[in-house]
């Protein structure tokens, strides 16, 4: 199984803020899904509860990429993230009959994936970077060699700085920046007040800025 270096989990896209909106994991925004997709989730859950495994498979298909990103952000490497993801979906499969259908699905899933990822990280102390890696970029918009060097350096530093954040700040930061969730959605996923989300995200940014250094931010 291929293993990715932690710093390669982040991919620079030529530092274009205009592209930020397109830089979320997966093709569908979770924020939109939380608003529109509840009925689809419930329909699939009910299909599953009536004995149609296709309902479960549809749920997994809908959320697996986001769930992978959550696991990846918390475990820090691809293999652990995949293991955690499989365990999490098995857990979902067993726990789905007890899911309260009046609640949104994503926060519930988030907590399961989060716990699976944290358990995985605790249980598996994998050696990172032993397997040869490949540079992953989008085929369009190739940067100059200089830009590529700077992007690679900053990407690696950002990942190191993210790993140094306390867990509660790190997950808020990742949910906001890499999952594209709004504050209220993060609050729902973590079961904390919005003010807590706000203060954790701000604290994370201040620490990241200190860690990266002002010169790195231009």
């Amino acid at each position: 199984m291929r293993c990715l270096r932690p710093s390669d989990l982040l991919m620079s896209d030529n530092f274009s803020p205009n592209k930020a909106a397109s830089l979320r994991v997966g093709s569908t925004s979770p924020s939109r899904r939380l608003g529109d997709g509840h009925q689809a989730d419930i329909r699939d859950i009910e299909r599953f509860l009536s004995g149609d495994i296709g309902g479960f498979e549809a749920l997994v298909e809908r959320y697996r990429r986001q769930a992978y990103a959550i696991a990846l952000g918390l475990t820090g490497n691809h293999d652990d993230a995949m293991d955690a993801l499989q365990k999490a979906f098995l857990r979902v499969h067993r726990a789905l009959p007890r899911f309260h259908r009046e609640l949104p699905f994503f926060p519930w899933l988030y907590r399961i994936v989060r716990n699976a990822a944290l358990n995985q990280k605790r249980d598996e102390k994998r050696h990172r970077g032993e397997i040869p890696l490949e540079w992953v970029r989008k085929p369009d918009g190739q940067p100059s060699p200089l830009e590529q060097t700077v992007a690679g350096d900053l990407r690696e530093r950002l990942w190191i700085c993210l790993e140094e954040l306390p867990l509660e700040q790190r997950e808020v930061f990742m949910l906001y920046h890499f999952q594209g969730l709004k504050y209220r959605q993060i609050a729902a996923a973590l079961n904390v007040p919005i003010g807590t989300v706000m203060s954790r995200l701000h604290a994370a940014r201040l620490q990241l800025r200190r860690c990266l250094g002002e010169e790195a931010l231009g």
Partner: protein
Amino acid sequence: MKNDSRDGRRPNSERLPFDPAREAPLLSAYVDGELDADQVARVEAHLASHPETRHEVSRLRRLKEVTGAMKLLDAPDEEWETFWNNIYNRAERSLGWFALTLGAVLVGGYGLYLAVASLLSTSELPWFVKGGIFALCFGVFLLLVSLIRERIYVRKRTRYDEIKR
């Protein structure tokens, strides 16, 4: 909260001034567009007369630009192609381990019972050997019960406890 104006903002006279020392997280929320109209008005009133806070906001914006230009990589396509197989394999193995453990406990327990009963019924064994065998079996039984109890307890009480059902 009293909202008198059409845009949902309170009149300036009713609004508490923004305090950057106590309310610094509002600056991040301002950059993210997550504040309500009244909070935006408070922050902007402060920014209008405090260049150092404006500088702080611009630094937060720059950080957001940089971090916004990064994303977590998706898993390789070949991983997703085998994803379902891996899930089903894991489920099968989980069931397999359960059956194997149950069978081992039943068969092993019965074998142990036969062996101990046979040994204890042998009259030529000294009393302390019989006592040792009894202690050994009692210890194994106690450890097994303790292990099962711990597994049941852990399953009920930890890891996924905070998940809302």
